């Protein structure tokens, strides 16, 4: 025993084993089951797993509900993530400068990320309420719309998609901003000074010095954001439940409604599994970034 | 390598950074495993013993004081590990702190101490459990120059008093010369020479030791196709300065640059006649007041008995030969 506690090799194994074991059991096992289910006919009630090959995938692929959801997922995730990266960069650069009350601004900007997302989204549910929306009230007060021209923010297909995208951006923007800000702060001041002395204009400085230097960190922020955007269902669940007419239904929410609420575990698992290739791509990209950071 | 310390000796491991001296020390401490060979402490092979069972104490370059403990707790820490009786601990701590005059700091945390005080706390913590061997890894390198001189003095006095075998790692040759009973000059993971300070300075075993010790180091010039000859800058003096006892080797010296350093003058230049073109340095004590300037030739000489000969390929010392 004493020797065990001294040898770094065995002590290391001993200390890490519980965590690894736990992760294998609670993440690995369900993960394998998720794949098994997707190829089986399992439902909430059934106790046995019989394999049905690609039947689930095929039947899922044929439904218009799935096709819409797949398209919505990409529209939702890509638009949201592009907005997050652009706005995050702008905001991070604005926050790089010192000004009075910066700590308060930072606290306020972080709120959407830190607060439980389901609760923050309810705040929006009220702001976008069909009858009492403060946005509509303000627009009317400004004379931009009439009393009968109030927008149904969550009730009209394109507006609903716009709303869920906006609120997703609202929620992820703080994370992207602080990550990008960390990247900007890590650029040595000398480099900016040198660029200034060399007479670089603002845009030249931005595109040829600043952005290339924070590229690895932008990649990290972008990858994490993509994972969140592709797999999250909370905003949509709380705001629209996929409606109206599935125009905001995404794979994650569809998997929930099919697998849990309708009790078709197999089909739900098959839908969720469509997210997997995407996650794999993100994981590989992340590993490459991590490796490159190690080398330099 | 073979390296044996004597009981109660102050042994210095000296070498440039990356020469393996710290690795050797860490192997003795048990923090690293030797790939082969045996380490003995007090006649017992300790290769398979963990650090705590080796009866050694070590002072790290950073002092490694535990930042979350007071000075008292830092020093009592090894005693608690050994299971020393509770009522004995304050007595032993008082003894150790008394040795270094830090009794008034017991309630402070390490961050509230100056560099010199930290070093003493580290020493007290090392000495408190009366180890068989005392290992010091560049313990003075974090002190400023002035403090370093007085700390060196204290360290030596303390070592003499407690008489524990001490192994001291440094890259600073002045520390090594001043502190060591013997010095092991190391390079590339081997001991190049082991000897008293006078031996390693006066009788270097090879060109590495000759070139590493002394500031500026020994002048080494090609004497023949297979032979190098070396002489110390302080022996390379104007002809008229030598007192005439013993044979001299005369050398024509064209000075290129003069550096005035207060106590000495350094003359940089090249030899003429014999060994033409060899770059050498002469070190003139301030008692020599003759004027020198760059661009002129002077007649210099080295006493024959101060010449050291080395084999050109191996770099090892060889017997004296006529030049």
């Amino acid at each position, binding site marked *: 025993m004493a020797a065990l*506690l*001294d040898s770094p090799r065995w*002590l*290391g*194994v001993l*200390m*890490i084993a*519980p*965590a690894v074991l*736990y*992760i294998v059991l609670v*993440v690995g096992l369900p993960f394998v089951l998720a794949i098994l289910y997707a190829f089986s006919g399992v439902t909430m009630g059934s106790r046995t797993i019989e394999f049905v090959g690609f039947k689930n995938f095929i039947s899922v692929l044929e439904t218009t509900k799935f096709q819409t959801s797949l398209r919505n997922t990409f529209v939702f995730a890509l638009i949201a993530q592009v907005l997050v990266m652009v706005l995050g960069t*702008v*905001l991070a650069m*604005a926050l790089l400068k010192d000004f009075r009350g910066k700590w308060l*601004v*930072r606290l*306020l*900007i*972080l*709120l*959407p990320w830190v*607060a*439980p997302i389901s*609760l*923050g989204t309810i*705040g*929006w549910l*009220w*702001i976008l*309420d069909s009858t*009492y929306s*403060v946005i509509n*009230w303000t627009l009317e*007060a400004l004379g931009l719309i009439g009393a009968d021209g109030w927008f149904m923010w969550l009730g009209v297909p394109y507006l609903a998609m716009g709303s869920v995208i906006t609120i997703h951006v*609202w929620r992820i923007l703080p994370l992207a901003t602080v*990550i990008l800000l*960390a*990247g900007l702060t890590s650029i040595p001041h000398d480099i900016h000074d040198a660029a200034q002395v060399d007479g670089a204009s603002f845009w030249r400085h931005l595109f040829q010095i600043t952005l290339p230097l924070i590229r690895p960190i932008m990649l990290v922020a972008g990858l*994490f954001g993509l*994972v969140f955007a592709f*797999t*999250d269902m*909370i905003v949509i669940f709380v705001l629209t439940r996929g409606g109206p007419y599935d125009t905001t239904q995404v794979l994650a929410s569809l*998997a*929930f409604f099919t*697998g849990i609420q309708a009790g078709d*575990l197999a089909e739900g*698992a098959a839908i969720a599994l469509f997210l997997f290739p995407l996650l794999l791509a993100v994981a590989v990209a992340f590993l490459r970034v991590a490796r490159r950071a190690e080398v330099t | 390598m073979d390296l044996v310390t004597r009981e109660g000796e102050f042994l210095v491991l000296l070498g440039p950074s990356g020469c393996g001296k710290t690795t050797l020390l860490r192997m003795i*401490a*048990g923090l690293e495993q030797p790939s082969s060979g045996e380490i003995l402490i007090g006649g017992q092979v300790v290769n398979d013993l963990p*650090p*705590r069972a080796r009866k050694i*104490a070590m002072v*790290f370059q950073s002092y*490694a004081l*535990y*930042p*979350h403990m007071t000075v008292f707790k830092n020093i009592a820490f090894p005693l608690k590990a050994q299971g020393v009786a509770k009522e004995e601990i304050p007595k032993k701590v008082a003894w150790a702190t008394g040795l270094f005059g830090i009794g008034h700091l017991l309630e402070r945390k390490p961050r509230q101490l100056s560099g010199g005080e930290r070093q003493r706390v580290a020493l007290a*913590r090392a000495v408190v459990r009366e180890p068989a061997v005392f290992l010091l890894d560049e313990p003075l390198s974090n002190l400023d120059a002035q403090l370093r001189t007085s700390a060196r003095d204290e360290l030596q006095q303390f070592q003499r008093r407690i008489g524990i075998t001490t192994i001291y790692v440094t890259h600073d040759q002045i520390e090594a010369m001043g502190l060591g009973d013997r010095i092991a000059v190391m390079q590339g993971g081997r001991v190049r020479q082991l000897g008293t300070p006078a031996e390693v300075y006066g009788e270097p075993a090879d060109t590495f030791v000759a070139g590493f010790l002394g500031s500026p180091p020994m002048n080494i010039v090609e004497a023949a196709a297979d032979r190098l000859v070396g002489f110390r800058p302080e022996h390379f003096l104007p002809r008229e300065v030598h007192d005439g006892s013993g044979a001299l080797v005369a050398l024509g010296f064209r000075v290129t640059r003069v550096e005035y350093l207060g106590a000495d003058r350094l003359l940089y230049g090249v030899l003429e006649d014999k060994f033409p073109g060899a770059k050498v340095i002469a070190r003139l004590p301030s008692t020599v007041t003759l004027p020198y300037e760059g661009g002129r030739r002077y007649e210099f000489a080295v006493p024959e008995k101060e010449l050291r000969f080395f084999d050109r390929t191996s770099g090892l010392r060889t017997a004296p030969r006529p030049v």
Partner: protein
Amino acid sequence: MAMSPALKRVTARGGHLGLIGLFTVFSAFPFYWMFITTFKRTSDLMKRSNNPFIYNEPPTLENLRVLFFDTLYVRWLGNTLFVGVLVVFVTLLLAVPAGYALARLTGKWGEHLGIGIFLTYLVPSTLLFIPMSRLIGDLGLQDSLWSLVLVYPSFTIPFCTWLLMGFFKAIPRDLEEAAMLDGYSRFGAFVKVVIPISLAGILTAVIFTLTLVMQEFVYALTFITAARNYTVSVGVPTFLVHGDVYFWGSLMAGCFIASVPVAVLYNFFVDRFIAGFTVGAIK
């Protein structure tokens, strides 16, 4: 006509502040709105012609009374705390040793394992909740808070292991080695020296675990069916919203109370969180 330098500076400054102001309003407005609504009478809220920015009728505490005494809100807060404390305990028990092992003991294979562990943090609940709901059922834990205690560490452990690994790596090795020479084993040095020095890091892990537990939605929604067993993040949106009548005042109060205090606490630790997230991508 070219602007004078002074005018240019003022415009740039104004633009900068305006930009920041715009983003700040966008981020914080929903929370401000929750706060305003909390104290409004229902009759005030339900009149479309009323200016929603001001109190047209005197403010009231009625919404808070309803929230705390007529709903299960307090119980949901208690449930969340119960799950949070237990998950923190489990997480620390497993992640602290694992983080140390990755930082110091496992060498090259540990580095790969560390990245592997971190990547499991990216496996989303939406991929796992279907088989998990089945497993939870098989274990007889459906509709029990213990199901959450069992499952939540699946995302807190990867993240905290990674975070703590960074902390442990930053501790000078000398300190552990000194403790080993002073008479302790590797493990003894870890317990006696490394853990006390890392309290700040461990506290950070505790805060993140608590916020992650508070945020979690999908598992709680899937495993828990009885209203009295909800956590706050699921109880408020599902139970309070899906009554026939929306009690907007109480609803907003419930959201505000559960969001803002945690956010303020979290704000003190966010830099460490980011340091964990960005791994080696910052040099």
